[in-house]
């Protein structure tokens, strides 16, 4: 940076000098500049125009992209291969442009894909080294992602935004939020089997666990677990998790329709009862209390979530809950996105593992949806009150997208059958369920 500036200055003065008097090489002004340059970069002394241009050319991005070298290291001091320095970076920049397209033109989770994509774009700039410990992205990553801080702040905001009313009105449906977590554990077994018996993947159990958490359909939880268990895979896991969450309206309906009959899809559910204010107020304390007793490992996630929800339901700190729901979560989303984007550097993302992660993540998502629907079918058979099996699909914790998808599929089958509130119950329970599942995984590997 500094050197290129100096080179540009020198270029200007050299042109000036050669234009004014060809034989006089040391005009006073030029001499002064050269002196100051000499102080910082003595090797720049007395260079011909051509040498200057060629040394400047070596500091350009064009040169870095077209002339990969051995021995170039990334922010973490690991050597970057020649492919990753040249085509790898270009491909990654292309991928970030695709992410922008999906976010802007298709409306896929733009709040996350735009910062993640831009972080990825910045991380692939040669020579700028933004992902190093002193680089812009590296500082963000170390400040809040390496220590799992930002995902917790996001969880706090999600807690402050969540209304547990629908779940409280019909607590039984919370079990559907548990069934959908089978997406996580089923995929864990599948990934382990593929790693062990096939040459396709070579993941450790930790890696498998971090990948399968994508099935929980919960962005902050995925980032939290990935940072703890498999930090190298973070970029791919976060991108997969958020992309699939955005693709919920595409992925879920075919699975929902395949597993249910027409008669089941048109089931009308009973109107929900009114929930007392005190029930909502006590809920975060109950959830936190249970996690303290059963699974203290999950209390960072559930504690932050419960705090946000408690602040909201207490009704006396609207300023705080408003900040958590808006200003704070927005700021953290920017930082989280950029920090995660720093893991989209070519040498981290363009590896064989990424493809495996994308495939296994999709499987995890589909299995979670299917398990939720099957559980809802079972509950419908056993329960005295009718339960529309479609709401089981909302057990994955993509709030409120999954519930909206359930509502839409229900309306397609039977116009006027509004399932939204019934689906919100399993949906918010899914958030708790995936946080508990995350806690179990952490406790296993600690």
């Amino acid at each position: 940076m500094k050197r290129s500036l100096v080179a540009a200055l020198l270029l200007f003065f050299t042109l000036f000098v050669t234009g004014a008097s060809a034989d006089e090489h040391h005009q006073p002004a030029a001499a002064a500049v050269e002196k100051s340059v000499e102080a910082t970069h003595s090797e720049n002394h007395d260079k011909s125009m051509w040498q200057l241009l060629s040394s400047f050319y070596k500091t350009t991005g064009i040169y870095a992209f077209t002339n990969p070298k051995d021995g170039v290291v990334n922010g973490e001091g690991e050597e970057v291969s020649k492919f990753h320095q040249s085509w790898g970076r270009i491909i990654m920049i292309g991928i970030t442009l695709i992410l922008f397209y999906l976010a802007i033109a298709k409306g896929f989770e733009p709040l996350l894909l735009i910062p993640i994509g831009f972080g990825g774009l910045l991380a692939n700039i040669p020579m700028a080294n933004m992902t190093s410990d002193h680089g812009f992205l590296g500082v963000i990553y170390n400040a809040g992602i390496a220590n799992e801080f930002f995902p917790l702040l996001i969880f706090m905001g999600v807690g402050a935004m969540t209304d547990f009313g629908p779940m409280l009105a019909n607590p039984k449906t919370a079990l559907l939020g548990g069934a959908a977590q089978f997406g996580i554990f089923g995929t864990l077994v599948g990934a382990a089997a593929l790693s062990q018996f096939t040459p396709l993947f070579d993941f450790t159990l930790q890696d498998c666990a971090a990948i399968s958490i994508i099935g929980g359909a919960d962005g902050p939880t995925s980032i939290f677990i990935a940072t703890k268990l498999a930090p190298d895979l973070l970029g791919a896991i976060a991108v997969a998790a958020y992309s699939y969450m955005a693709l919920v309206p595409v992925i879920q309906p075919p699975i929902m329709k395949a597993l249910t009959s027409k008669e089941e899809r048109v089931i009308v559910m009973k109107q929900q009862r009114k929930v007392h204010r005190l029930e909502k107020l006590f809920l975060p304390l109950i959830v936190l209390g249970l996690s303290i007793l059963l699974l203290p490992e999950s209390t960072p996630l559930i504690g932050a979530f419960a705090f946000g929800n408690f602040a909201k339901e207490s009704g006396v700190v609207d300023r705080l809950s408003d900040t958590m729901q808006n200003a704070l979560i927005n700021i953290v989303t920017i930082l989280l996105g950029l920090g995660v984007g720093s893991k989209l550097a070519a040498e981290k993302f363009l590896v064989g593992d990424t493809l495996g992660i994308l495939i296994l993540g999709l499987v995890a998502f589909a299995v979670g949806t299917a398990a939720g629907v099957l559980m809802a079918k079972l509950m419908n058979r056993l329960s005295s009150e009718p339960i529309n099996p479609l709401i089981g699909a909302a057990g994955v914790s993509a709030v409120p997208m999954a519930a909206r998808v359930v509502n839409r599929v229900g309306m397609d089958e039977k116009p006027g059958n509004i399932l939204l509130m019934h689906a919100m119950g399993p949906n918010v329970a899914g958030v708790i369920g995936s946080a508990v599942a995350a806690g179990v995984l952490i406790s296993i590997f600690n």
Partner: protein
Amino acid sequence: MENMVAESFKYMILGMGIVFVFLYVMVLVLQFQAKMIGKYFPEKPADKGGETAGVDKKKVAAAIAAIQHHKNLRK
């Protein structure tokens, strides 16, 4: 790791078990809570308005009648 599949299968049993136990206990506590709150802190009946509306109607009718009567007298 000797047998990753067997290992991960155990994790699955444990994980799904804990998730269900957690949510099931939560459901029980919530149902109990709903019962207790319903018993000790009943919501004030919201449809009290029906009766007052009835009273109001009578008063309104009386007032209209009185004004009408007053107007009739002035003619």
